[in-house]
């Protein structure tokens, strides 16, 4: 699949010499997947390497480079078309915009370009591999009957045309061509007796022959394929894949090389680097190795003895394989991409991404390339031996293969003719029209059809699909803001009963919506889930500090959880108990794999039946037992955060842990400004700050389910820390000086929402003043109800939960998912995400967004002229949301190449990632079960701001500029006061024309989704409007 493509950047000027080789490798390394250790899973744009290009060019480059699908398959889009998820109107509009001036160009009097393309989109065009095409003609009645979707009038038109042709031919008695005469012979001359069916078949055969004859006159474009990588050449020539053997060996070695401590024996001399370690190990005598590695140890000994560096070895290999100078870069790139998962991981570790236990020396990737090329040379020689019976050099084998490369004669004519034949049917072209075409006109027609290739069709389908959703979303916002204006005109805002701040995560959208429905007198906000508290955190039961903040930030502060001093003794005892149990259990698992320990554990192993059977058959019970037992060894429940620092410098040691008052104040100001709650009357008596995370069993990708703004960890401690800071009266004084005054009767409470089992826990309730107990009870009641409803809404997506489930059962169901070791889909995570709303909640409140939208709070009225608040919000929100959205997009359109395939055979390797089975490339991206319900749409940002503000932010922030201008995301700004929207297209904002369609209304969310598992349209919900 990987063919020569234009390189992204200029060729490296000087192509030989060690420096140049190193540059080649480092340059190619940027194309490798950039996923680090799986435990800190960070969503990012899978095609980050191509982010400089516009989206559509980048996905095409992805196809050329990685052989990955750029869009959904054509069948999938067609299915969406049939279901009405893409309409005729969308296709027309997108085509028109895409073609611009060329839309109306007429092609040989057969129709305009726009018409021809639309016909090709509306009706399925079968163009497949030769064998498939052959099957279609042979096994279906493609030449006997019109395609089922061709309307009757066009059918009649074609048949009438065929009759006319026959009549005129009879009249003149002139033979047109041998081919068409042959047709008459085939059908017989008694056409007076033909029935309707015979005429239909005759017309189609006639069309087919005309198309074929016409196409014959135009020369086919010869797409010559040049194989830069020897492996591709050999695979094509002989069907032997040398990667099989080479990778088998390399994977084993790579896994041992990067192992973070799973295996008992460490790879000898691994700290000397990949190349050295391999040489050391494989210069050992090869007494019974596979045939293809014969002579490997001698060769390696030669390299070792004469001190050949990896660079020199690569140079040697390149010369030995006879790679032309021009192809060097391409050759190295393709070689690296051959085993891209492992190469990517080595590159990540080597360049120091993420904390790891065992780091590896730099130059490892270079070593990998050198070794891979040496092994490939041996494998090539072996293939040569297999084919010719004698050993010759790798270069000779490749030349031999080149000669053997059979000249393929594809069904070029038939394939092109079949495309036109189908277009002729769907556009009702008549035989005479086609017969009248000159050779040049045929050529033009052929070029026309070729230009609208399958790839182009999918691009148009995709744009149309996105357009439909985008328009629905924007229409919904416009009409919703209109009604919002009416309501806010009628009502005077009262002080809300309580306020809840959650993460911007799309999974919190429904939680907030249900909260607002349950208790209309509350207010909700969204902000990045670390709540401006960037910390290294250590829980009471943890031994290490972990970062809790977005990956791009390196925290300066450390926070730890302390057990209440009264319980210190118990805490120490339990810590010791945990340590002993931990050591014992580790020893048990390690020993069970050894010789003698295995005998012991094997014999008492029958006892394992109890946990085995229990955890599979009774997950809920097992979880409860585990919890009860766990409570005996876990730290005592009463803990506090050590949040205040006494020493000058922040650090992990005692006294250096925590923040100073000024630092706390700046955190509080920052967050409150972001969400636009700064005036005293904006605060309610109770302000709940709710972090989120997810817990599931048997899930190596668990980190991908947690809070992205907390580096794939759980965001509870951040919420707890923020609440504690904001409650501190010293902090409040400082905050007041900065112009944000928090009323004295406002109390902050930290909470944590588990998005998998939908539980919510609150922190530090002991310090809640009695005056606020009633407020808290009201809030807790509303949150309890909201989480039940939220679980209920989530259950509609799970096939294993009946649609008739009650909210109480729904909670049980989602809890069981989190506790079940056999569950491959604990939750659906960010699947179906498609929107991001930035602005005041007031105008999006009461809109059913179907858990597809990120919600960020922002109040433009409180921003300064330089839009600094919006700029800092977007600086995080756009890359993060786009990263999540694009990773889902790519993993969904090609879960085998961009994603990590099915979860079922996953196997954790080196404590760093997963393989499929025991010897596959390291798999990156999201797995199939996680994205199966996702609809790949680029995310649409709807921002409450002005075009000028956004343009200036794009100017200042290159990342945002790149994403917006390259169409990696869609962007629209909205003015809720007058309900106008402007969308960003082709580098500028254009006014958006409202369709006039208001979303349907429903009284509760439940009425919107009842009995339905698919994605839903937008709804206006009336329950949230009864705001007092």
């Amino acid at each position, binding site marked *: 699949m990987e063919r020569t493509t234009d390189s992204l950047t200029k060729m490296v000027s000087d192509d030989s010499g060690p420096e140049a080789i190193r540059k080649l490798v480092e340059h190619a390394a940027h194309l490798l997947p950039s996923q680090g250790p799986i435990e800190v899973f960070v969503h990012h744009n899978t095609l980050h390497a191509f982010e400089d290009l516009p989206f559509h060019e980048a996905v095409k480059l992805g196809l050329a480079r990685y052989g990955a699908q750029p869009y959904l398959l054509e069948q999938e889009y067609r299915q969406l078309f049939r279901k009405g998820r893409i309409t005729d109107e969308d296709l027309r509009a997108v085509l028109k915009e895409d073609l611009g001036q060329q839309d109306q160009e007429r092609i040989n009097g057969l129709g305009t370009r726009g018409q021809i393309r639309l016909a090709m989109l509306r009706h399925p065009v079968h163009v497949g591999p030769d064998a498939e095409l052959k099957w279609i003609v042979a096994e279906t009645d493609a030449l006997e009957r019109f395609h089922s979707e061709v309307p009757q009038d066009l059918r009649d038109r074609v048949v009438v045309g065929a009759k006319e042709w026959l009549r005129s031919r009879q009249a003149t008695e002139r033979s047109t061509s041998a081919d068409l005469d042959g047709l008459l012979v085939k059908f017989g001359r008694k056409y007076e007796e033909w029935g309707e069916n015979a005429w239909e078949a005759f017309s189609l055969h006639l069309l087919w022959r005309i198309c074929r004859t016409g196409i014959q006159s135009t020369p086919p474009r010869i797409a010559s394929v040049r194989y830069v990588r020897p492996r591709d050449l050999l695979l094509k020539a002989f069907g032997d894949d040398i990667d099989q053997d080479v990778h088998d060996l390399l994977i084993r070695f790579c896994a041992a090389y990067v192992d973070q401590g799973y295996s008992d024996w460490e790879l000898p001399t691994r700290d000397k680097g990949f190349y050295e370690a391999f040489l050391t190990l494989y210069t050992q005598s090869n007494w019974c190795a596979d045939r293809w590695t014969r002579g490997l140890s001698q060769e390696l000994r030669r390299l070792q003895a004469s001190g050949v560096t990896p660079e020199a070895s690569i140079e040697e290999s390149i010369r030995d394989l006879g790679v032309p100078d021009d192809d060097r870069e391409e050759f190295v790139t393709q070689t690296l991409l051959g085993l891209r998962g492992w190469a990517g991981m080595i590159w990540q570790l080597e360049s120091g991404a993420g904390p790891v236990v065992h780091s590896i020396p730099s130059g490892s990737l270079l070593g990998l390339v050198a070794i891979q090329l040496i092994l490939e040379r041996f494998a090539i020689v072996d293939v040569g031996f297999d084919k010719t019976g004698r050993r010759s050099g790798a270069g000779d084998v490749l030349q031999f293969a080149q000669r053997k490369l059979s000249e393929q004669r594809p069904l070029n004519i038939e394939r092109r003719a079949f495309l036109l034949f189908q277009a002729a049917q769907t556009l009702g072209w008549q035989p005479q029209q086609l017969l009248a075409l000159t050779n040049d006109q045929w050529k033009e027609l052929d070029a026309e059809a070729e230009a609208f290739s399958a790839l182009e069709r999918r691009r148009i389908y995709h744009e149309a699909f996105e357009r439909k959703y985008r328009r629905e979303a924007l229409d919904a916002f416009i009409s919703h803001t209109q009604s919002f204006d009416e309501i806010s005109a009628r009502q005077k805002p009262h002080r809300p009963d309580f306020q809840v701040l959650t993460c911007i995560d799309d999974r919190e959208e429904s939680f907030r919506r249900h909260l607002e429905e349950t208790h209309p007198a509350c207010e909700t906000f969204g902000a990045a889930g670390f709540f401006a508290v960037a910390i290294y955190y250590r829980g009471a039961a943890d031994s290490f500090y972990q970062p809790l903040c977005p990956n791009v930030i390196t925290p300066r502060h450390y926070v730890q959880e302390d057990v209440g001093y009264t319980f210190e003794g118990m805490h120490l005892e339990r810590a010791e108990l945990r340590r002993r149990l931990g050591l014992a259990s580790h020893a048990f698992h390690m020993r069970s794999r050894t010789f003698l320990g295995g005998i012991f554990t094997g014999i008492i*192993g029958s006892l394992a039946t109890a946990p085995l059977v229990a955890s*599979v058959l009774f997950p809920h019970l097992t979880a409860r037992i585990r919890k009860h037992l766990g409570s005996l060894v876990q730290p005592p429940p009463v803990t506090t955060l050590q949040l205040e620092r006494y020493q000058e410098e922040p650090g992990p040691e005692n006294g250096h842990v925590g923040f100073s008052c000024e630092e706390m104040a700046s955190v509080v100001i920052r967050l409150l400004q972001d969400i636009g709650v700064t005036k005293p009357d904006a605060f309610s008596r109770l302000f709940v700050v709710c972090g989120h995370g997810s817990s599931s069993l048997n899930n190596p990708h668990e980190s991908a389910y947690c809070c992205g703004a907390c580096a794939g960890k759980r965001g509870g401690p951040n919420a707890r820390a923020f609440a504690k800071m904001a409650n501190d009266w010293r902090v409040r004084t400082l905050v007041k000086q900065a112009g944000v005054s928090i009323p004295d009767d406002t109390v902050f409470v930290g909470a944590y929402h588990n998005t998998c089992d939908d539980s919510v826990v609150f922190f530090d309730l002991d310090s809640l003043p009695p005056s606020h107990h009633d407020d808290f009870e009201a809030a807790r009641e509303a949150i309890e109800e909201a989480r039940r409803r939220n679980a209920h809404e989530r259950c509609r997506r799970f096939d294993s939960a009946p649609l008739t489930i009650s909210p109480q059962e729904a909670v049980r169901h989602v809890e069981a998912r989190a506790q079940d070791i056999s569950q491959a889909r604990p939750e659906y995570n960010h699947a179906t995400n498609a929107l991001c709303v930035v602005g005041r909640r007031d105008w999006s409140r009461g809109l059913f967004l179907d858990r597809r939208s990120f919600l960020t709070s922002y109040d433009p009225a409180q921003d300064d002229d330089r839009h600094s608040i919006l700029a800092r919000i977007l600086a995080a929100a756009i890359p993060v949301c786009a990263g999540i959205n694009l990773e889902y997009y790519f993993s969904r359109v090609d879960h085998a190449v961009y994603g990590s395939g099915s979860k079922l*055979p996953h196997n954790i390797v080196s404590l760093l990632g997963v393989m499929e089975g025991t010897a596959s490339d390291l798999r990156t991206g999201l797995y199939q079960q996680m994205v199966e319900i996702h609809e790949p749409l680029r995310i649409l940002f709807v921002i409450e701001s002005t075009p000028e503000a956004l343009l200036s932010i794009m100017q200042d922030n290159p990342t945002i500029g790149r994403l917006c201008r390259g169409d990696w995301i869609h962007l629209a700004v909205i003015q809720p006061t007058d309900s106008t929207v402007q969308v960003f297209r082709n580098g500028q904002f254009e006014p958006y024309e409202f369709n006039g369609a208001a979303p349907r209304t429903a009284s509760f969310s439940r009425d919107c989704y009842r009995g339905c598992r698919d994605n839903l349209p937008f709804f206006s919900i009336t329950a949230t409007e009864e705001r007092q």
Partner: protein
Amino acid sequence: MMVEPILHALGVVVVGSPVVLLTALGLPLLIGIRLSETVQSRLMKGSVVAGLTAAVCILGVMLVTGSRHVPIEFGNWASIPQEHFHFHLKFVFDRLSVPFVILSFVLCGTVGAFASVYLHRDRGFRRFFLLYALFQLGMVVSALAGTIETLFFGWELVGLSSALLVAYFHERPAPVRNGLRVWSIYRIADAAFLIAALTLHHLTGGGDFDGLMGSGPWPDGVAAIDSTSALLVGLLLLLAAAGKSGMVPFSGWIPRAMEGPTPSSAVFYGALSVHLGVFLLLRVSPLLDASVLLRVAVVVLGLVTAIFGATACRVQSDVKNALAYASLTQVGIITVEIGLGLQYVALIHMIGHACLRTFQLLRAPSVLKDYRMLENAVGSSLSGDKAGRSQSTSSLQLWLYRFALERGFLDAFLNVWIVDPFLFAFRSFDSLERRWTSLLSGGESRESDRLAPYEDSLEDVA
């Protein structure tokens, strides 16, 4: 006595429940009815519960009545008196088969329940459970087999379903290739088994274990054949067991077999399938008394396998491989125990090991989380830089590491000494034949050589 008919009825349930399951899952597929996931998993659970209950009842009845040997006859299914051949279907409940069949039901049931959630919405759900039913039937038949041909029958079903489940993800090339490899190695084991069965028929006039081992209940039987014949038959059966249990030199297939979904890997290579070879040795253990040489061979093979497994296990850096070699180590040790005549120890060891390993394999995706949890409990990095790591490694250590990393060169050994000569021989025959036929026909003799794909035009095909 009322006991006989009760036992017989229970026995029929034990054997019948997997048969019913296979039919219930297979027939609808054949006639194009698509059962829902729920129906399939209910059928599976029902079958396991029925079989398990009946097996436990039999155990109870046997304990109460003190009977140690309950044969259940299904008569001759094929009989060629001239050739002294008859396919005799007979099942035996004794101290070996009852625990093993209960183990099979428990593990199959648990892993089946696991899989019915784990494979939810997977395209191959039906295929998986069909093969799964086939496997379960194979295990039950092998466990209860009272004649060598019955055992062979079950043995084949297990082999077939294993190979097909290894190739479960047939859209990727690697699983299919590995499935084929497993299948080929099973063929070697099967050939040895078949020859052993035929030899046995010749020696004793029937494949009945009673005839072979004397009439004493397991394990007290006394082999009824002489030492040389015992050695011959025993070695063949040892070869069969080695192939099936992945012992040296056939160990190469075990890591390859981990390509299937996690639950099938767990039940096959952690638990049941891998122990089937050992079970065979247990079943024929009275043979060992008849020949000291055979006993030595068993002990040596077991020991070599155990040492190899323990060594290879040390360097595996992925979870499933490490567990696979850990299993192999224990299989080797169990073989040694059988060789030493410790049948009961071997049986207990086998059951315990199967349960433990299944549990470990099913929880394999939790390894990362477990590591973090333990590290937090212990307070230091479990895998941290090992203090006092020797900087210089001796060449023996290097060699041992290489040996373990290359999995004992066993695959290469089989490739070089068995596969390559085999291919070479048959390719030579092919070229000889071609030369001969070309000579006879005075030109190119094989028309298929000249056929190019897509010669005819599309319309002609129509």
